[in-house]
């Protein structure tokens, strides 16, 4: 079906639109009243919405302010964490510590040899004193 309009369609459109444009006064007046009633309805909805929006906006602003204030208080402990982390890194990367871990077996043998050369003093209960 072609979308082109035929002269017949143009004529019917012209007749129909002419008839709509030349309505009697009473009908035009009733249509205007109907339009104003519809606009009054939307105006009423609008005023109701604004009446709700003002307290809702104030409440939202208050909640936001509370969140912002809480965020400011929470900032203080958070800032100390990087300092602690830096200290940890210094301890872990110290050269002497690493050397100690590399010679761990030597330190274990040294400890054993020392305990064999110098046995621990017997406790009072073992020596039968008391």
């Amino acid at each position: 079906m072609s979308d082109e309009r035929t002269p017949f369609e143009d004529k019917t459109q012209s007749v129909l639109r002419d008839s709509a444009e030349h309505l009697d006064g009473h009908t035009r007046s009733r249509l205007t009243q109907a339009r104003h009633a519809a606009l009054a309805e939307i105006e009423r909805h609008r005023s109701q919405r604004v009446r709700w929006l003002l307290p809702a906006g104030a409440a939202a602003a208050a909640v936001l302010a509370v969140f912002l204030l809480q965020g400011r208080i929470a900032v203080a402990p958070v800032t100390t964490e990087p300092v602690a982390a830096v200290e940890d890194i210094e301890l872990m990367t110290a050269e002497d510590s690493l050397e100690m871990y590399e010679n761990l077996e030597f330190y274990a043998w040294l400890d054993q040899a020392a305990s064999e050369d110098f046995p621990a003093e017997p406790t009072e209960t073992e020596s039968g004193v008391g």
Partner: protein
Amino acid sequence: MSANAASLDRLSATLLAHMSGLTAESVEENSLEHVRSLDQFLASVEKRAFQIARIAVRDTDDALDIVQDAMLQLARRYGQRPCEEWRPLFYRILQNRIRDCQRRRMVRNKVFGWLPGIRNAAGENEDTDPFQQVQDDRQGPTDRVMTGEAMNLLEAALRELPARQLEAFMLRNMEGLDVAATAQAMGCTEGSVKTHYSRAVHTLRDRLTDAWGELS
């Protein structure tokens, strides 16, 4: 640390001021603009909508009630929707109201049709005020007679059409909606709109070509 706190204070103060301004002024401004747009839209369609309803239900008072109801429904339910959506939505509501009216009338005629004083099947008022039927004088007398006669013939032919063909023809031809918007207003597919419209045009052409030829 103190710089951060100061900036947060400034941010919260700005947001509070902005939100207060939003609720009081910009919302008000947008709403008023929307109401003005709706007023312009309704003024632009009200006369044609009335003619569509009047031809469909064949009664001036019922047609005025239908148009008023469609306007109220559009404002109430879809007033906040974007302006470009109003036209198909308005005609969808209008067509639904027309169908409701036709159904109510059919039931009323079936139930109370045997009682005297009830409106006839065509739905015309028996007590029409003749002063309300006075036409606008902005056209010349000869033109008015020609247009009036052509309209009478067209209206008679339109009333012979099936309801869906009449809907498609009035929306496509008189209101100038495209196929997609007509389909949305009628609640059917674009293919159905094309079919209904094509059949309506063929029927009207068959009935009116000779009659209008005699007028001109």
